[in-house]
């Protein structure tokens, strides 16, 4: 049985004793330093590595021949299960690559040398001062750790961002096809990396922000319409969703409204609409007559509530009420205020009026 930690490869031998090989003693100059191979006919899958003899720690002789003893290493071989061979190779390689034992040194070197007792170190003031110093050391360490990680992250993210921007541009121009749908879903999930701020954009803040809002809003509306729901989102929801996508550096409601105004003018990818006082954005895919037709279809059989209609249209209740009331205003729906709440029916009064033969 063998165990792999960040610092050691630990073995239990047949006699139940623990032996370990420190990872820093394993020769690692790249992926080729660790090998996976098998004996004849795929039997006895093994993983092989080389251990430096000269390190002053306990080294296990695997029981194999030491034909490489003219070098300063011996072979370390572990026999593995064939289906795990690949995984073991990967994990060992990873642990060797990470070299986590190196952090131990840097940590210990940061210990402050003992300066001896000082009067300024005494009392509560001294305690507070020491605590502050500890905190600043800790936060410095965190910053350094983050910088290191962030740098590599940003490097990799840059490629993805370039790709994503190209996709977004393609998306804004075209409208249709399964590819576009896949793209939209992916883009919406990705959120926004590096949101536009006044600092980053300076004088171009307005136009850059409008562009960013547009690039985010178009796929979002597209996705909404594809899930057979109405591509209408009210501005309050846009505010929440957009800021959530940004993750940090939220923009103010005022800036969002300004951004939407400019985006609508600049790119004409969506329309701002006022549904009886409720401001919202409407995707190009939206057609009022289609929505009205959908509603009329549902009420054909029996009266329906705003709740039912909103759910089926895929909009929230406030939006749903507005849409229904607009269709009602057009004379296509009538309302029934019963005990169970308000239901909407197809307007049959015209037909009844004619049937009754009423003289004006």
């Amino acid at each position, binding site marked *: 049985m063998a165990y792999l930690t960040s610092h050691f490869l630990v073995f239990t031998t047949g006699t139940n004793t623990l032996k370990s090989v420190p990872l820093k003693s394993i020769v690692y100059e790249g992926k080729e330093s660790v090998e996976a191979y098998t004996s004849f006919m795929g039997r006895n899958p093994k993983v092989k590595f080389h251990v430096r003899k000269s390190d002053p720690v306990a080294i296990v002789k695997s029981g194999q021949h030491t034909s490489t003893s003219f070098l300063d290493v011996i072979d370390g071989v572990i026999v593995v299960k064939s289906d795990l061979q690949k995984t073991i190779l990967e994990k060992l390689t990873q642990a060797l690559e990470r070299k986590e034992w190196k952090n131990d040194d840097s940590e210990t070197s940061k210990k402050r040398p003992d300066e001896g007792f000082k009067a300024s170190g005494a009392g509560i003031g001294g305690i507070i001062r020491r605590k502050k110093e500890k905190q600043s050391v800790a936060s410095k360490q965190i910053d350094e750790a983050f910088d290191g990680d962030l740098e590599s992250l940003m490097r990799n993210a840059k490629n993805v961002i370039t790709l994503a921007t190209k996709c977004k541009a393609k998306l804004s121009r075209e409208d249709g096809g399964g590819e576009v749908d896949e793209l939209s879903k992916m883009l919406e999930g990705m959120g926004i990396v590096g949101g536009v701020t006044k600092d980053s954009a300076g004088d171009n803040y307005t136009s850059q922000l409008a562009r960013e809002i547009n690039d985010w809003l178009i796929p979002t509306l597209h996705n909404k319409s594809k899930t057979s729901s109405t591509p209408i989102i009210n501005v309050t929801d846009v505010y929440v969703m957009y800021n959530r996508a940004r993750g940090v550096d939220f923009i103010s409601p005022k800036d969002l409204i300004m951004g939407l105004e400019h985006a609508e003018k600049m790119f004409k990818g969506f329309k701002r609409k006022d549904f009886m006082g409720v401001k919202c954005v409407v995707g190009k895919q939206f057609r009022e007559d289609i929505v009205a037709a959908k509603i009329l279809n549902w009420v054909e059989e029996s009266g329906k509530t705003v709740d039912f209609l909103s759910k089926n249209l895929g909009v929230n209740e406030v939006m749903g009420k507005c849409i229904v009331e607009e269709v009602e205003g057009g004379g296509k729906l009538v309302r029934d205020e019963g005990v169970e709440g308000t239901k909407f*029916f197809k307007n049959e009064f015209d037909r*009844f009026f004619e049937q009754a033969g009423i003289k004006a």
Partner: protein
Amino acid sequence: MSDFEFPEYYSFPPFFTIQPVSATRQKQLALWRDLILKYHTANKEKTLVVHDCTLWKNEGIQRELNRDNVRLICEDFVNNGNGEWEDEAKTRIRIMWKKPEELAGDLLAWADRSGFKGQVCTLYELSSGEDSEGASFEGADEELIRRALAILEERGQVAIFKGDTSEEDGVKFF
């Protein structure tokens, strides 16, 4: 109570909710006026008691007009000339199944057709006489006929003479 056949719209739930959209509401109110007229005419009822009219509630669909809407419909009915308030408190409406102007026209046309022009006939004859059989005003409310005649008198198309009894009041068509 005759077997009045309620129209289809009486079972339409929205009929009992006054519609907020003006154009729709106009049609709805017209249907209510039509219903009230047809119902009272079929049952030969001359008066509608506002707080006691069976039309306001349809048990079958569990819908009824609320107080305010009853008032709204009654006011609309009267304003449209289909009825008159019998009292100041506005609790009863005299149904005018025909508007006085319409009736006036009918009376004139009848007088022309039946050769009563230039002749005098009594009020009774007008409402229930042989000659008035089949006429639109047959069996009409006396009050209504008087109203119509008053209009004609104003226009100078008839003259009214007082008789011993009100039924014997005479009318001369010019």
